[in-house]
């Protein structure tokens, strides 16, 4: 752990993410205003003023407060959707690659079918049926993104299971579960974690996109994507409305990417010393 503190990737990434997490957790205490409170007097108030540090939007809501509350939606969507997709995808990929045969064929054709659907089309269809909302957005993301993890893990599994150390474990009498999790998965995790950190960043953006299209989070709940979409209309007159939520997204994405880089190196004993 002491070594980690000397790694700028870890330090910067951790500080950024902790900051965002703190915003999400302590939002009511940190936000200077009620995020939904529209004050007509403050319509498109310029930033860096005493009342509105980051300005206000078209109906006079404080942008800083909305960004602080918006971290809740963005973090939840980004982390939960990726965790879900990773969990499902990794298990399916591991099982398909390890056991092979008909099971592998079935699971991978399922993945192919999944891949052949454009994401937006599927998102629109699913949300049209089950209705919008944050958890439904997460569900749609996990539904479409498990494939990426499944394919990577399956590929890794196929090559790892022929390696001698895996055969050695079978030779020692290790159970399937032990061989799969201790020997194969442990060695297959590096690309998965890298993909996952990028995935969190990507899903924060996707949520923003879906919310922008009106398919995402309830518009009354502050979210960075929604703010970005609102701000787009005023970009010429009031740059701060879209810029600050955009920066929030950038900072969060950067934080996850830095942590991902650090994690990738840390997971591999060959580069961790």
């Amino acid at each position, binding site marked *: 752990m002491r070594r980690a503190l000397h790694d700028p990737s870890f330090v910067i990434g951790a500080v950024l993410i902790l900051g965002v997490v703190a915003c999400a957790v302590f939002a009511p205490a940190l936000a200077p205003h009620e995020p939904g409170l529209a004050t007509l007097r403050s319509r498109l108030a310029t930033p860096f003023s005493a009342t509105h540090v980051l300005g206000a939007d078209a109906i006079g809501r404080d942008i800083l407060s909305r960004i602080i509350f918006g971290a809740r939606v963005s973090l939840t969507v980004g982390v939960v959707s990726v965790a879900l997709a990773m969990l499902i995808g990794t298990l399916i990929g591991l099982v398909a690659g390890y056991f092979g045969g008909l099971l592998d064929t079935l699971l991978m054709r399922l993945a192919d079918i999944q891949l052949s659907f454009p994401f937006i089309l599927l998102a629109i269809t699913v949300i049209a049926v089950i209705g919008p909302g944050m958890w439904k957005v997460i569900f749609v993301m996990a539904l479409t993104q498990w494939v990426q993890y499944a394919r990577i893990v399956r590929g890794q599994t196929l090559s790892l299971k022929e390696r001698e150390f895996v055969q050695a474990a079978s030779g*020692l009498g*290790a159970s399937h579960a032990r061989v799969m999790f201790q020997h194969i998965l*442990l*060695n297959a995790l590096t690309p998965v974690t890298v993909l996952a950190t990028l995935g969190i960043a990507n899903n924060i953006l996707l949520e923003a996109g879906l919310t922008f299209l009106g398919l995402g989070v309830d518009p009354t709940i502050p979210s960075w994507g929604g703010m970005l979409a609102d701000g787009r209309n005023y970009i010429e007159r009031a740059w701060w409305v879209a810029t600050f939520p955009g920066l929030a997204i950038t900072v969060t994405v950067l934080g996850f990417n830095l942590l991902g880089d650090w994690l990738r190196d840390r997971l*591999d*004993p060959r580069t961790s010393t």
Partner: protein
Amino acid sequence: MTIPEQVPTTVSSHHQETTTRALRDELLLEVKGLRKYFPIRGGVFSRVVANVKAVEDMNFTIKRGEVVGLVGESGSGKTTAGRAILRLIEPTAGEVLFDGVDVVTLSKAKMREYRRKMQIIFQDPFASLNPRMSVGDIIGEALTIHNLAHGKAKEARVADLLERVGMNAGHMRRYPHEFSGGQRQRIGIARALAVDPDFIVADEPVSALDVSIQAQVVNLLQDLKDELGLTMLFIAHDLGVVEYISDKVIVMYLGRIMEIAPAKELYHNPVHPYTEALLTAVPIPDPTIKRERVILQGDIPSPINPPSGCVFRTRCPLATEECKHVVPPLEQVGTDPNHFKACIHR
């Protein structure tokens, strides 16, 4: 960390017991009619279009405490044979009697118990150790799997094993990439010994190592054999290495056994023309010694479509028309009950 001088393990006592019990002619392993075909699939419905006949009708025995060398060129099926015996790959046909029990027919669960008694040392020490596990975890894994030792007892056992293979206990927290090839192979050997096996297949354990390291590892195996009374199938493509460690040698060619003889006998009195060719290929470190070299022409034929009759006939200096039609049986040579050959001319 200090290592107790006498690590209380069941190992040493057990081994002394087996050594004293080891009547030299007690059979430990009996291989009967072992075959391994790898199907080649092709066409629309993945039909089997051909078979790679890697191992064809192998029969041999290994006595308790004996080291049997298995030699042959690349592609002769020796590694496949070793793995089929341990069921790391499933044999196509045949019986492998281990202490009288046919392990080929054992259920998966029952086989898992038998894995404790039969171990393998791999050829490539860089591929055979999990890069994500510490040396202590690698060696101790078998103890966990078979519920043999936990916590402190496990640590003591791992330390003991490390010292036994010429490393030290402090190495257990390190990772495989921190070690050289020879050291890694020692770790591989320690892993195989962890479960206190009765039988070890050493699959070309030194051919991936530098020559200077080879001798050290072979010496280690020799010492371990003497100390622990190990029974071993030692696979190699180099007769020089095998001569040193083996009691008995099996010569394989294209999946079939060509000759079986006690090591001394084989080196001084080879009967099969293939054995002769292999022996004359062993370099002698003395330029003044002249000898007749039997040089084999061409490559080993494809095991997908092996020659009819005797598989060696296409490269054999003695081959005649008859060799095309007769598959030579493995017969006793003269009156020697330990020497067998598969050649109709000798």
